[in-house]
Protein backbone atom coordinates (compact mmCIF):
# COMPACT_ATOMS: atom_id res chain seq x y z
CA UNK A 1 0.00 0.00 0.00
CA UNK A 2 2.82 2.39 0.92
CA UNK A 3 4.51 1.60 -2.37
CA UNK A 4 1.53 2.99 -4.24
CA UNK A 5 2.39 6.49 -3.05
CA UNK A 6 5.32 6.56 -5.47
CA UNK A 7 2.94 6.28 -8.36
CA UNK A 8 1.21 9.56 -7.49
CA UNK A 9 3.75 11.73 -9.38
CA UNK A 10 3.37 9.52 -12.43
CA UNK A 11 -0.41 9.74 -12.19
CA UNK A 12 -0.22 13.55 -11.95
CA UNK A 13 2.14 13.66 -14.91
CA UNK A 14 -0.21 11.47 -16.94
CA UNK A 15 -3.19 13.69 -16.07
CA UNK A 16 -1.34 16.87 -17.10
CA UNK A 17 -0.08 15.22 -20.29
CA UNK A 18 -3.60 14.11 -21.19
CA UNK A 19 -5.08 17.57 -20.55
CA UNK A 20 -2.34 19.18 -22.65
CA UNK A 21 -2.90 16.68 -25.43
CA UNK A 22 -6.62 17.52 -25.47
CA UNK A 23 -5.66 21.20 -25.57
CA UNK A 24 -3.67 20.67 -28.76
CA UNK A 25 -6.87 19.82 -30.62
CA UNK A 26 -8.62 23.08 -29.69
CA UNK A 27 -8.71 26.06 -32.01
CA UNK A 28 -7.57 28.97 -29.80
CA UNK A 29 -9.29 31.57 -32.00
CA UNK A 30 -12.73 30.15 -31.19
CA UNK A 31 -13.80 31.81 -27.97
CA UNK A 32 -17.00 31.06 -26.10
CA UNK A 33 -19.49 33.87 -26.58
CA UNK A 34 -20.64 35.69 -23.48
CA UNK A 35 -23.84 36.68 -25.27
CA UNK A 36 -25.50 33.32 -25.82
CA UNK A 37 -29.16 33.55 -24.69
CA UNK A 38 -28.80 37.31 -24.25
CA UNK A 39 -31.03 39.70 -26.18
CA UNK A 40 -29.43 41.41 -29.13
CA UNK A 41 -28.27 44.88 -28.05
CA UNK A 42 -30.21 47.88 -29.32
CA UNK A 43 -28.78 49.31 -32.51
CA UNK A 44 -29.74 51.30 -35.58
CA UNK A 45 -27.23 51.12 -38.41
CA UNK A 46 -26.97 53.40 -41.42
CA UNK A 47 -27.76 51.81 -44.79
CA UNK A 48 -25.14 50.31 -47.09
CA UNK A 49 -27.35 50.01 -50.18
CA UNK A 50 -28.83 53.08 -51.81
CA UNK A 51 -32.47 53.90 -51.05
CA UNK A 52 -32.48 51.43 -48.18
CA UNK A 53 -33.77 51.71 -44.59
CA UNK A 54 -30.60 50.34 -43.00
CA UNK A 55 -30.74 47.76 -40.22
CA UNK A 56 -31.97 48.07 -36.65
CA UNK A 57 -32.85 45.92 -33.64
CA UNK A 58 -36.58 45.92 -34.44
CA UNK A 59 -35.94 44.18 -37.79
CA UNK A 60 -35.02 41.05 -35.80
CA UNK A 61 -38.38 40.52 -34.16
CA UNK A 62 -40.77 37.88 -35.43
CA UNK A 63 -38.48 35.50 -37.26
CA UNK A 64 -35.38 33.36 -36.85
CA UNK A 65 -32.49 34.94 -38.72
CA UNK A 66 -28.75 34.83 -39.24
CA UNK A 67 -26.85 38.04 -38.58
CA UNK A 68 -23.59 37.94 -40.51
CA UNK A 69 -20.65 40.22 -39.69
CA UNK A 70 -18.62 40.72 -42.87
CA UNK A 71 -16.29 43.06 -44.74
CA UNK A 72 -14.79 43.23 -48.20
CA UNK A 73 -11.28 43.33 -46.69
CA UNK A 74 -11.85 39.97 -44.98
CA UNK A 75 -10.63 36.97 -46.97
CA UNK A 76 -12.66 34.23 -45.24
CA UNK A 77 -15.81 36.33 -45.81
CA UNK A 78 -15.26 35.96 -49.54
CA UNK A 79 -14.99 32.21 -49.03
CA UNK A 80 -18.32 32.02 -47.23
CA UNK A 81 -20.19 34.54 -49.39
CA UNK A 82 -21.30 32.14 -52.18
CA UNK A 83 -22.83 29.85 -49.52
CA UNK A 84 -24.81 32.76 -48.06
CA UNK A 85 -25.97 33.81 -51.52
CA UNK A 86 -27.13 30.25 -52.25
CA UNK A 87 -28.95 29.94 -48.90
CA UNK A 88 -30.75 33.24 -49.47
CA UNK A 89 -31.74 32.47 -53.04
CA UNK A 90 -33.15 29.09 -51.95
CA UNK A 91 -35.00 30.93 -49.16
CA UNK A 92 -33.66 28.54 -46.53
CA UNK A 93 -33.15 31.27 -43.93
CA UNK A 94 -33.30 35.04 -43.54
CA UNK A 95 -29.82 36.56 -43.51
CA UNK A 96 -29.04 40.08 -42.29
CA UNK A 97 -25.66 41.73 -42.72
CA UNK A 98 -23.44 43.94 -40.60
CA UNK A 99 -20.83 45.57 -42.82
CA UNK A 100 -17.89 45.93 -40.42
CA UNK A 101 -15.24 48.64 -40.41
CA UNK A 102 -15.46 49.98 -43.92
CA UNK A 103 -17.38 52.70 -45.72
CA UNK A 104 -20.85 52.02 -47.17
CA UNK A 105 -19.31 52.64 -50.63
CA UNK A 106 -16.83 49.82 -50.08
CA UNK A 107 -19.63 47.57 -48.82
CA UNK A 108 -21.79 48.40 -51.84
CA UNK A 109 -18.97 47.65 -54.26
CA UNK A 110 -18.45 44.29 -52.57
CA UNK A 111 -22.14 43.35 -52.80
CA UNK A 112 -22.21 44.36 -56.48
CA UNK A 113 -19.24 42.12 -57.12
CA UNK A 114 -19.98 39.10 -54.89
CA UNK A 115 -23.78 39.10 -54.69
CA UNK A 116 -26.21 40.30 -52.04
CA UNK A 117 -27.79 37.66 -49.76
CA UNK A 118 -28.95 40.16 -47.13
CA UNK A 119 -32.54 41.03 -46.28
CA UNK A 120 -31.44 43.93 -44.10
CA UNK A 121 -27.98 45.36 -44.02
CA UNK A 122 -26.35 48.12 -42.01
CA UNK A 123 -22.96 49.76 -41.91
CA UNK A 124 -20.89 49.45 -38.73
CA UNK A 125 -18.14 51.68 -39.99
CA UNK A 126 -16.64 52.57 -36.59
CA UNK A 127 -17.04 49.02 -35.23
CA UNK A 128 -19.07 50.07 -32.21
CA UNK A 129 -21.84 47.47 -32.67
CA UNK A 130 -19.23 44.75 -33.24
CA UNK A 131 -17.80 45.53 -29.78
CA UNK A 132 -21.29 45.26 -28.27
CA UNK A 133 -21.62 41.87 -29.94
CA UNK A 134 -18.25 40.64 -28.67
CA UNK A 135 -16.97 40.17 -32.21
CA UNK A 136 -13.35 38.98 -32.34
CA UNK A 137 -12.95 38.85 -36.12
CA UNK A 138 -14.83 38.38 -39.36
CA UNK A 139 -16.75 36.49 -40.46
CA UNK A 140 -18.91 35.79 -37.44
CA UNK A 141 -22.55 34.86 -37.65
CA UNK A 142 -25.16 35.01 -34.92
CA UNK A 143 -28.33 32.94 -34.96
CA UNK A 144 -31.08 35.10 -33.49
CA UNK A 145 -34.45 33.69 -32.46
CA UNK A 146 -37.93 35.15 -32.96
CA UNK A 147 -37.71 37.29 -29.84
CA UNK A 148 -34.39 38.82 -30.89
CA UNK A 149 -32.22 36.76 -28.53
CA UNK A 150 -28.81 35.48 -29.64
CA UNK A 151 -28.84 31.69 -29.49
CA UNK A 152 -25.64 30.65 -31.26
CA UNK A 153 -22.47 32.18 -32.62
CA UNK A 154 -20.56 30.77 -35.56
CA UNK A 155 -16.92 31.91 -35.65
CA UNK A 156 -15.39 31.61 -39.11
CA UNK A 157 -16.93 31.04 -42.52
CA UNK A 158 -20.21 29.18 -43.05
CA UNK A 159 -19.36 26.48 -45.55
CA UNK A 160 -22.02 24.07 -46.90
CA UNK A 161 -20.77 21.52 -44.30
CA UNK A 162 -21.05 24.02 -41.43
CA UNK A 163 -24.55 24.87 -42.62
CA UNK A 164 -25.83 21.28 -42.73
CA UNK A 165 -23.99 20.08 -39.63
CA UNK A 166 -24.35 22.91 -37.15
CA UNK A 167 -26.43 25.84 -38.34
CA UNK A 168 -29.41 24.26 -40.13
CA UNK A 169 -30.37 22.03 -37.15
CA UNK A 170 -30.35 25.03 -34.79
CA UNK A 171 -32.37 27.16 -37.19
CA UNK A 172 -35.05 24.50 -37.63
CA UNK A 173 -35.17 23.89 -33.87
CA UNK A 174 -35.63 27.61 -33.21
CA UNK A 175 -38.27 27.85 -35.93
CA UNK A 176 -40.29 25.14 -34.20
CA UNK A 177 -40.23 27.11 -30.95
CA UNK A 178 -43.47 29.00 -30.24
Amino acid at each position, binding site marked *: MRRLIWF*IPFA*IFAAIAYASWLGLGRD*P*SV*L*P*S*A*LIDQPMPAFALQPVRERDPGFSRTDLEGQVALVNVFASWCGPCRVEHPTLVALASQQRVTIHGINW*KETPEQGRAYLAEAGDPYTRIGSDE*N*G*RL*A*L*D*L*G*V*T*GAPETFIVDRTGRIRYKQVGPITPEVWTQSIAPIVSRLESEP
Partner: protein
Amino acid sequence: MNAVKTLLAVLAMTFAAHALAVEPGEMLPDPVLEQRAREISTHLRCVVCQNQTIDDSDAPLAHDMRLLVRERLTAGDTDGEVLDYIVARYGNFVLLRPPFQANTWVLWIAPFAVLALALAGLLMQMRGRAAPSSAPLTEEERALLQQRLAPKKERV
Protein backbone atom coordinates in the same frame (compact mmCIF):
# COMPACT_ATOMS: atom_id res chain seq x y z
CA MET B 1 35.38 42.68 -25.82
CA ASN B 2 32.89 41.10 -28.20
CA ALA B 3 31.25 39.29 -25.33
CA VAL B 4 30.79 42.57 -23.48
CA LYS B 5 29.18 44.14 -26.54
CA THR B 6 26.81 41.19 -26.92
CA LEU B 7 25.92 41.36 -23.26
CA LEU B 8 25.20 45.07 -23.49
CA ALA B 9 23.05 44.54 -26.56
CA VAL B 10 21.05 41.82 -24.82
CA LEU B 11 20.59 43.99 -21.74
CA ALA B 12 19.51 46.93 -23.88
CA MET B 13 16.91 44.76 -25.59
CA THR B 14 15.71 43.31 -22.30
CA PHE B 15 15.13 46.63 -20.62
CA ALA B 16 14.00 48.62 -23.66
CA ALA B 17 10.67 50.31 -22.98
CA HIS B 18 8.29 48.41 -25.23
CA ALA B 19 6.57 50.43 -27.90
CA LEU B 20 2.99 51.27 -27.07
CA ALA B 21 0.23 51.11 -29.61
CA VAL B 22 -1.81 53.97 -28.19
CA GLU B 23 -2.02 56.63 -30.86
CA PRO B 24 -1.92 60.33 -30.00
CA GLY B 25 -5.39 60.85 -31.50
CA GLU B 26 -6.90 58.31 -29.09
CA MET B 27 -5.69 60.00 -25.92
CA LEU B 28 -8.09 61.88 -23.71
CA PRO B 29 -7.37 65.56 -23.00
CA ASP B 30 -7.78 64.94 -19.26
CA PRO B 31 -4.50 63.37 -18.04
CA VAL B 32 -6.16 61.74 -15.01
CA LEU B 33 -8.79 59.98 -17.14
CA GLU B 34 -6.13 59.04 -19.68
CA GLN B 35 -4.01 57.51 -16.92
CA ARG B 36 -7.01 55.46 -15.74
CA ALA B 37 -7.68 54.39 -19.36
CA ARG B 38 -4.08 53.21 -19.68
CA GLU B 39 -4.32 51.29 -16.41
CA ILE B 40 -7.55 49.57 -17.50
CA SER B 41 -6.07 48.79 -20.91
CA THR B 42 -3.25 46.79 -19.34
CA HIS B 43 -5.83 44.39 -17.87
CA LEU B 44 -7.64 43.75 -21.14
CA ARG B 45 -6.65 41.12 -23.64
CA CYS B 46 -6.60 41.92 -27.34
CA VAL B 47 -9.00 39.24 -28.60
CA VAL B 48 -7.32 39.10 -32.01
CA CYS B 49 -3.71 38.65 -30.90
CA GLN B 50 -4.77 37.05 -27.59
CA ASN B 51 -1.51 37.30 -25.66
CA GLN B 52 -1.11 41.05 -25.89
CA THR B 53 -2.94 43.69 -23.94
CA ILE B 54 -5.03 46.17 -25.90
CA ASP B 55 -2.49 48.74 -24.71
CA ASP B 56 0.27 46.97 -26.67
CA SER B 57 -1.61 45.80 -29.72
CA ASP B 58 -1.83 47.44 -33.11
CA ALA B 59 -4.84 45.36 -34.17
CA PRO B 60 -7.83 47.45 -35.35
CA LEU B 61 -10.07 45.71 -32.81
CA ALA B 62 -7.69 46.69 -29.98
CA HIS B 63 -7.88 50.27 -31.24
CA ASP B 64 -11.70 50.11 -31.12
CA MET B 65 -11.56 48.69 -27.61
CA ARG B 66 -9.22 51.44 -26.40
CA LEU B 67 -11.69 53.99 -27.73
CA LEU B 68 -14.53 52.15 -25.99
CA VAL B 69 -12.65 52.24 -22.66
CA ARG B 70 -12.18 56.01 -23.05
CA GLU B 71 -15.80 56.47 -24.11
CA ARG B 72 -17.04 54.69 -20.97
CA LEU B 73 -14.67 56.66 -18.73
CA THR B 74 -15.78 59.95 -20.25
CA ALA B 75 -19.38 58.85 -19.65
CA GLY B 76 -18.54 58.64 -15.95
CA ASP B 77 -18.00 54.91 -15.39
CA THR B 78 -15.71 53.71 -12.61
CA ASP B 79 -12.77 51.46 -13.57
CA GLY B 80 -14.74 48.43 -12.38
CA GLU B 81 -17.78 49.38 -14.43
CA VAL B 82 -15.67 49.73 -17.58
CA LEU B 83 -14.22 46.24 -17.07
CA ASP B 84 -17.69 44.81 -16.33
CA TYR B 85 -19.04 46.42 -19.49
CA ILE B 86 -16.43 44.71 -21.64
CA VAL B 87 -16.61 41.39 -19.77
CA ALA B 88 -20.40 41.34 -20.33
CA ARG B 89 -19.69 41.34 -24.08
CA TYR B 90 -16.49 39.35 -24.41
CA GLY B 91 -16.60 37.07 -21.38
CA ASN B 92 -13.92 36.58 -18.74
CA PHE B 93 -11.43 35.57 -21.41
CA VAL B 94 -10.89 39.25 -22.15
CA LEU B 95 -9.40 39.74 -18.66
CA LEU B 96 -5.71 38.90 -18.50
CA ARG B 97 -6.11 38.08 -14.80
CA PRO B 98 -8.98 35.59 -14.53
CA PRO B 99 -11.33 36.09 -11.56
CA PHE B 100 -11.50 33.44 -8.82
CA GLN B 101 -14.70 31.51 -9.48
CA ALA B 102 -16.18 28.02 -9.92
CA ASN B 103 -14.43 27.20 -13.19
CA THR B 104 -11.10 28.86 -12.41
CA TRP B 105 -10.33 27.88 -8.81
CA VAL B 106 -8.30 24.88 -10.01
CA LEU B 107 -6.14 27.28 -11.99
CA TRP B 108 -5.51 29.48 -8.95
CA ILE B 109 -5.10 26.69 -6.39
CA ALA B 110 -3.09 24.19 -8.45
CA PRO B 111 0.41 25.74 -8.04
CA PHE B 112 0.01 25.94 -4.25
CA ALA B 113 -1.46 22.42 -4.11
CA VAL B 114 1.50 21.04 -6.06
CA LEU B 115 3.92 22.89 -3.78
CA ALA B 116 2.14 21.52 -0.68
CA LEU B 117 2.26 18.04 -2.14
CA ALA B 118 5.97 18.34 -2.82
CA LEU B 119 6.62 19.58 0.74
CA ALA B 120 4.54 16.75 2.17
CA GLY B 121 6.54 14.25 0.11
CA LEU B 122 9.81 15.77 1.26
CA LEU B 123 8.68 15.70 4.90
CA MET B 124 7.69 12.04 4.68
CA GLN B 125 10.99 11.20 3.09
CA MET B 126 12.94 12.98 5.86
CA ARG B 127 10.91 11.37 8.63
CA GLY B 128 11.57 7.96 7.16
CA ARG B 129 15.31 8.60 7.39
CA ALA B 130 15.43 10.30 10.75
CA ALA B 131 13.79 7.45 12.61
CA PRO B 132 16.46 4.72 13.06
CA SER B 133 15.72 1.91 15.50
CA SER B 134 16.78 2.88 19.05
CA ALA B 135 16.71 -0.67 20.41
CA PRO B 136 20.06 -1.81 21.94
CA LEU B 137 22.25 -4.04 19.83
CA THR B 138 21.99 -7.79 20.17
CA GLU B 139 25.03 -9.91 21.04
CA GLU B 140 25.38 -10.97 17.45
CA GLU B 141 25.33 -7.42 16.16
CA ARG B 142 27.85 -6.32 18.77
CA ALA B 143 30.24 -9.07 17.72
CA LEU B 144 29.84 -8.14 14.08
CA LEU B 145 30.50 -4.50 14.86
CA GLN B 146 33.66 -5.34 16.83
CA GLN B 147 34.90 -7.47 14.00
CA ARG B 148 34.27 -4.73 11.44
CA LEU B 149 35.84 -2.00 13.54
CA ALA B 150 38.96 -3.92 14.55
CA PRO B 151 42.06 -2.81 12.67
CA LYS B 152 42.82 -5.17 9.89
CA LYS B 153 45.94 -7.24 10.20
CA GLU B 154 48.29 -6.57 7.41
CA ARG B 155 48.55 -9.40 5.03
CA VAL B 156 51.93 -10.60 4.13
